[in-house]
Structure formats: C-alpha cells, structure tokens
C-alpha cells in the first residue's frame, strides 16, 4: 500500500469503524487504514504528545474542542453521528426498574459515569432536567446516594450491568445493542432524552493526505452512515 492513514477513534466506535475501514479500503485499493482505539481522553493525550494520527473521532466533543484549541486539528471537528443516553438494567432486572423514578427507591444499586466523562455528564443532565421539569426536589440527590460506583467510562458501567452486580445504570444505546441481550433498555422520559454527539476531524498531521479527508467524507457518506446506524448510532441531527 502506498498510502496508509491512521485513525484514532473512541473505543465505542470499534465495531462500526472496523467495518467502515474495511469498506473504505475496498473502494481505494491502494489505501490502508490503521485503527487505534482508546478512550477519548487517552486519544487526546496521545495526539497532544505527537501520536501519528491522521484522523481523530472521539465520543466527546469536549476532547475534540480541546484538540482544536491546541491547534492540533486541520479543521473544526464535525459531528458525524450521535449516540443516545439510555437507562439500562440487566436482562433479569433484579430491582424491577420500570421508570427513571425507580432509581431513587431505597437499596437500588446504580452506576453511572463520573461527572467529568460524557456518559456521566449526560446522566446528571438527564436527571436534573427530569427533576426540574417535574419539580421533584431531592430526586437527583436520592439517585446519587444510590450510586455504588462512578465509572470513568461508559463501558465500565455496561460491564457491571452485564455481570448483574448492579441494578441500573446510564449507558449509550450502542452498549445495549452490543450486549447481545444481556442489557435491557428502559425508555427515558422525553424530558430526559439526551443525545451524545461524536465529532470527527482530520488532524494537522493528516492535513496533507488526501486519504484522510476521504475517510472523513466516507464516514459522512450514506454508506458510512448506514454502517454506523447498524451499530445503534443515529445520524447527526
């Protein structure tokens, strides 16, 4: 291959991007896509220290914006897809959670992300919005009191749910889909619905490479979007 590009992507994009990259290579026989998956924060730290990324796709626009502010991107990041925050319970739903408000019941074990990671930020926002709209003071505090662990990424939340050691947690829809039935989604009330944007950008390093921007375009193309959709992502709205 005379053209190799490196794509740094959030781990939640693994399956979708692996497919997209294979398809992309198919269409451009002389191009190879090297994929590097890690948490968005790790990706940013690596790119800040000179990692050879040509394209970066994070699960969090905060990280992307910081990369842009540091002058490491060739262009502003564009949201290419959205994920949805959902409330998930283990398949057997041990605590019998049927609604968001059940999270405040005594002895329910809840997990969510820390406030500093998107999945945690979104979860808090969802709770607060719900409490505000419905005028339920103390609801957020009661739920937070039930939290047995604040995870640093969504997958740790999902993993605990899959093992059935906790009762409920906030994850992304893609996580529920990937769990092969181990997780069940509890529909969030519309007031609490939150979308998580996934931004993508060509880095400074990839600026000169035609394949890099071509890959970004491919992700945005109908083919790319279809593949993303099959893994539970929604088109950027």
């Amino acid at each position: 291959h005379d053209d190799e590009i490196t794509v740094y992507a959030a781990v939640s994009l693994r399956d979708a991007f692996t497919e997209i990259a294979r398809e992309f290579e198919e269409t451009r026989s002389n191009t190879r896509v090297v994929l590097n998956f890690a948490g968005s924060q790790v990706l940013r730290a690596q790119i800040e220290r000179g990692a050879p990324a040509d394209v970066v796709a994070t699960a969090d626009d905060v990280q992307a914006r910081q990369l842009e502010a540091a002058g490491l991107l060739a262009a502003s990041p564009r949201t290419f897809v959205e994920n949805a925050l959902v409330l998930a319970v283990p398949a057997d739903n041990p605590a019998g959670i049927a609604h968001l408000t059940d999270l405040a019941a005594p002895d329910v074990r809840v997990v969510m992300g820390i406030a500093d990671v998107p999945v945690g930020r979104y979860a808090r926002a969802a709770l607060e919005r719900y409490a505000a709209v419905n005028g339920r003071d103390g609801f957020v505090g009661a739920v937070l009191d039930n939290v047995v662990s604040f995870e640093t990424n969504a997958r740790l939340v999902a993993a605990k749910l899959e093992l059935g050691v906790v009762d409920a947690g906030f994850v992304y829809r893609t996580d529920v889909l990937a769990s092969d039935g181990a997780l069940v989604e509890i529909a969030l009330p519309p007031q609490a619905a939150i979308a998580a944007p996934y931004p993508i950008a060509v880095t400074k390093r990839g600026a000169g490479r035609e394949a890099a921007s071509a890959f970004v375009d491919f992700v945005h193309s109908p083919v790319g979007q279809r593949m993303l959709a099959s893994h539970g992502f929604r088109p950027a709205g």
Partner: protein
Amino acid sequence: MRRAQSLTWNRLALAASAAILVAFIGIPVGALIARGFIEGDVLAAFRSPVATTALWLSLATSAIAVAVAVVLGTPAAYLLARHAFPGRSIVDTLIDLPVVLPPVVGGLALLVAFGRHGVIGGPLDAAGVDVAFTTGAVVLAQLFVAVPFYIRAARAGFEGVDRRLEAVSATLGASGWRTFRRVTVPLALPSLIGGAVMCWARALGEFGATIMFAGNVFGRTQTMPLAILEAIETDVDAALAIAIVLIVLAFAGLLVFKALARLGGRVL
C-alpha cells in the same frame, strides 16, 4: 573474606547498566514531575480534599492489604517452599495468575465471584453482607493483585534458608513455631521485606481491579490512582499534580519502610 577486590572494569559495566535502568525509569518519572510542577498546581493538589481523602484511603487500604498478604502469604510461601505435595506447582502457578490478568479483568473476576450472583457473593448477599463496592472491596482488590508478589519473594527467601540451621534449632528444643520465628524468618528477612515492599507498592498503585470491583466513590472507595485517573479525564495537569502527591508519598513510604526493615533486621 572481609573485603574482596573488584576490578574497576567490572564495576564500570555494572554501573553502566544500572545507570541505563535508572535513567529509563528516572527520566520519565522526572519529566512527569517536572511537567506536573510547571503546568499543574502541586501545592493545591497536596491540599485538595480529593487528593487528601484519597491519600488516606490509599494508605489505610494498602496497609491492610499488605498486612493480610503477609499474614496469609507467609505460611503459604513456607508451605510451597518446604513441603512437597501433589499439585504444588499448580498451586504455585495459580497464585501467580493475578499478575498476568489485566487488573480490570481481575476486578471482573472478583466481581463475578463476590458479586450478588457469585459463588461467594451469593451466600454472602443472602446473609445481608455486601462485599463489592465497599471499602473492603478495595482491600480485596489490592490483595488480589498484589499478594502474588509477596508470596513469590517469600518463597524464594525460605528456599534460601539453610535447613541445617533449622535442624539445629530443633535439637536445641525449639518448637517448629519457635524455629520458624527465630531462625527461618530472620534469615529470609531480606526477601520477605523485598516482597512486602513490592506488594505494598503494587497495592498502592492498583487501579483497574479496584474501579471494577470496588467502584469509584469519593471517600469510600476512591483511592489515589482512581482520583488521578478521574482527574485525567478533564485535566491532565491537575492529574499529574495528584500523581506527584502519590509519588512523593510512595517514595517517602518506601524509604521509611526499608530503613525500618534494616533496623529491624539488625535488632532482631
């Protein structure tokens, strides 16, 4: 026997490879510290409640973990070193496994076993005892990940003790226990201390198994590494500042630990 000569040449080769290693470890750590000082606010970190609370929790849990490792690990190591029994090498190898498992997977394993539906966790849950997601779980996670280092070192130490001295102790009327305490342990001490130091250090730095098994709740299960990795999510430099707190603490702790051990070895 009192003072052997050493060729300068050999010494140079020794010093060179030691220097390479020291540089290899020292420069990254030094660079990290430098960056933390330049970009982060180390003083603030030293005073921040996040760091101090996590610090105390780390100290307490790692101390307990090491104590348990020593109490349970010493007899196990002695058994492995001194008694041949069927399946010994299987047991020996099993004890090493936690080191191989990525800590998060180790935490997963603990969660599977101690979780609500687990082999151990199930009955405990029925009895109303929660293990996962408690401070106790932090200790268990640290123990799981760190105890192999103590056992392996202790085993090597016990193997190095001259068995004639133990035999002589017995002829002097000493019970097995007294022999163990007065002869075997003191002679294996350098290895035991080395193992305990590594065990403590590993427990102190433990992250993956803890967050998986004990969760990450400020003041209850958030140890220093968890605090650092939480901080990294938003601000690398703030995280580095907390990391410096950990490094300073660990460095001082290790120095004190070793000095005390040397002293103890001499007094013994």
